[in-house]
C-alpha cells in the first residue's frame, strides 16, 4: 500500500475518549427522570423523546460527550448507537466542550448582505479568536451560523441556543459582550411588525420589555 493514504479522509472521533464528566456527577435527578418519562409517554415509541432528552442533558452538562449520550440513551431506553447517531447529526448539539456563552453569528445570505460578516469579524477581533474557537478564559465560543430565521432584523446572532439579538452593530456587540461577561443574558426580544407600527403605533405585545424595530436597523459601513 505504501503511504498513499496517510491519514483518514475524515477525522474519526476517538473511540474511547477519557470521560469528561466525573462518574459521580453523571446522574439525572428524580425531577429530570420524571420529565424524561413524560416525554417518552408522548410518543408512540420511546425514540421520539431522544431529542428532548439530549437537549435536557446538554443544558445540564454543557455538552454531550459519549458518556452523557449513553446516560440519556439508558434513561430513555434506546440503544446507544441510535442516540449517538442523533447527537452527531444535529448541529445544535455540542459534541465538545464550548465556552460559557456560545455566540452563533448568522452570516447566511440576508445577514451577509446586511453586514453579518462585518459583525463576525468584529467579534473575532474583539475576542481574539477565530470562528469555531473558544477564548482562553473559557467565556466565549464564536460560531458562524446558517440562517437562523430572523432575516428581517439582520444582522443578528443567537446566544447559546437561546435568545436572539437583532439588528447588530458595533456598539450593540460591545454592550452585549460586556453584559455577558457579567452573566447578564439579554431578555427575549420582540421584533415589531412594520404593519403594526403603522396601524397600532408600536409592538402589539405588552408583556415584552425588549422591543426591536426595523427603524433602528444599522447600516453597515461595508455593505458587500
Amino acid at each position, binding site marked *: 500500500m505504501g503511504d498513499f493514504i496517510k491519514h483518514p479522509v475524515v477525522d474519526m472521533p476517538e473511540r474511547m475518549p477519557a470521560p469528561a464528566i466525573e462518574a459521580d456527577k453523571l446522574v439525572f435527578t428524580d425531577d429530570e427522570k420524571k420529565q424524561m418519562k413524560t416525554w417518552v409517554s408522548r410518543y408512540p*415509541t420511546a425514540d421520539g423523546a431522544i*431529542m428532548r432528552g439530549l437537549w435536557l442533558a446538554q443544558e445540564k452538562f454543557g455538552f454531550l460527550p459519549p458518556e452523557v449520550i449513553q446516560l440519556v440513551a439508558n434513561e430513555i431506553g434506546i440503544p446507544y448507537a*441510535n442516540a449517538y447517531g442523533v447527537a452527531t447529526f444535529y448541529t445544535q448539539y455540542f459534541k465538545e466542550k464550548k465556552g460559557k456563552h456560545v455566540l452563533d453569528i448568522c*452570516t447566511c445570505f440576508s445577514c451577509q448582505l446586511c453586514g453579518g460578516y462585518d459583525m463576525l469579524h468584529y467579534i473575532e477581533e474583539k475576542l481574539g479568536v477565530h470562528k469555531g474557537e473558544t477564548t482562553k478564559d473559557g467565556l466565549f465560543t464564536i460560531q458562524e451560523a446558517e440562517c437562523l430565521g430572523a432575516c428581517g432584523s439582520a444582522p443578528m446572532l443567537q446566544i447559546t441556543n437561546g435568545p436572539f439579538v437583532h439588528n447588530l452593530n458595533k456598539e450593540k456587540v460591545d454592550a452585549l459582550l460586556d453584559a455577558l461577561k457579567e452573566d447578564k443574558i439579554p431578555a427575549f426580544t420582540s421584533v415589531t411588525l*412594520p404593519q*403594526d407600527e403603522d396601524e397600532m403605533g408600536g409592538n*402589539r405585545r405588552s408583556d415584552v420589555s425588549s422591543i426591536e424595530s426595523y427603524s433602528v436597523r444599522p447600516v453597515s459601513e461595508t455593505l458587500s
Partner: protein
Amino acid sequence: MEAKKTKAGDWRSYQRVLLPPVKDLHKLDVYEKHDGYKALREVVTTDKWDPTSVTNEVKKSGLKGRGGAGFPTGLKWSFMPPVNPEIPRFLCCNGDESEPGTFKDRQLMEYNPHLVLEGMLIASYAMSIKTAFLYIRGEFADWITLMEEELEKAYAKGYVGKNIMGSDFSCDIVIHKGAGAYICGEESSLMNSLEGKRAYPRVKPPFPAQKGVWGYPTTINNVETLACAPLIINRGGEWFSKIGAPSHPGPVLYGISGHVNRPGVYEYPTGMLITDLIDEVAGGMRGGKKMKALIPGGSSTPILRADMIDGVTMDADSLREAGSMMGTSGMLIMDEDVDIISWLRRITHFYHHESCGQCTPCREGTGWLENIVTRIDEGKGNVRDLDLLLDLCTQMEGRTVCALADAAAWPVRYTITRFREEFETRCLKEMAPSGGVLETA
C-alpha cells in the same frame, strides 16, 4: 408590454386576518374575545360540519401550501386513507422554517399562536387524527417556550385534549423541538426526526398519507397553511378564494429582507406586484440605490434580475412565467452594490453544510459547487468552470431522494445563466495577466 396589474385588488386598504391588529392577541383571553376557537367550536360541536365537509370547504377555498411546494391543502387532506380505528393517524405541523430568507412562521407563532393551534385541531378533525405534532426548529427556543405556555393554557381550557368542548372529538398536541438541521423542513426527514432518528429523507412513494411517522398515515402542513384553516371555517371557503390571485388565493405573509428601508413580515393578499411590495410596502430601496436582483421565495427559488420583474405578481403562475417560484414568499432584495458571485458562494456554502449526506450526487455535488464557485469568487476561475457548474447542476437535479440537491443546484444554475457576464468578467480579468490565453469574441 402588458400593463402592470396587481392581482391583489385594493391591497392598500387590506385588513389583516392572520395577524389582525389586536393588542396582545397571543394571550388566550384576548384571542377568545376575537372569535378565538369559534371555528373549532363550530366544527366539533355542531352538526353543520363533519370531517368531509371541512376538507371540502378547504378544497373550495383553493388554499395552497405555504411551505414552499404550493400543493393544494384540501387535496392533501383527502389523500388520507379511510379511518381504521386500529391504526393511529398523525398530523405534523412543519415549523422548521430554515429556508434562508424565510422568517414568517416565527412571527405567526409569536403574535398569534392560538390561531396555529386552532388550525392544527381543525385539520386533525378533518382527518380524524388524535395526535398532532408541532415541529419547531431548535433555534427558536424562545418561541418553543412561548408555544408550550400557550398550549398548556389551551389544554387547561379544554380546547386541546380529551373530548374537546364536550364533543366526542379528542386530540393531543405535542411540541417537538428540533436541533438545527435545514433538512428537517423536508417532510419525510421531519418524520424521521420526530421518530428520533437521524433526519434522512425517505424515498417516496410510499407517501406520508400511506406510510408516515412510525409507518402510520400522516399529513404534514406548514404553520401558515394550518393557520388559514380557522379563517376558512369562520368566513367560508368562497371568501378565502376571492382574496388575491384567483389561482393561488388567500392572505400570505411576505417576509421581506435585504436592502430595503422597511424589512419585515407583511400580511397582504397573494398576487401583489413585486414592484409594489418593494417600493410601497417595504419603503423602497435603502439609500435610494437601484435594485439589482431579488429572490422571491427563499434561497432555492431562482433569482430574478431587476429587469425581469416588471408586472410580475407574487403568485405561482406569474412567477413561473417570469422564471422563478413562489416558494415560501421570503423575499430577499439586493441592491446594485451586491457582489453576486460572493453571494452565490455563501449559498453554496449553506447547501454544502446542510446536505444530510445520504445521496452521493448531493453530498459530493454541493461540495463541488462550493469549491468551484469559491475558486471563481477568488478570481482563480476559468470560463469553462461556468459550464462545468451547469453540468454539475444537471447531474444533481432530480437524482436524489429529496429535493435538497435541486434546491442547491437551482440558485447556481439561474444565477450563472442570469448573471453570466459578471461571472465571465471575474474569470477573464484574472486570466489576462498570464498572457491572455482566452480570446473574447
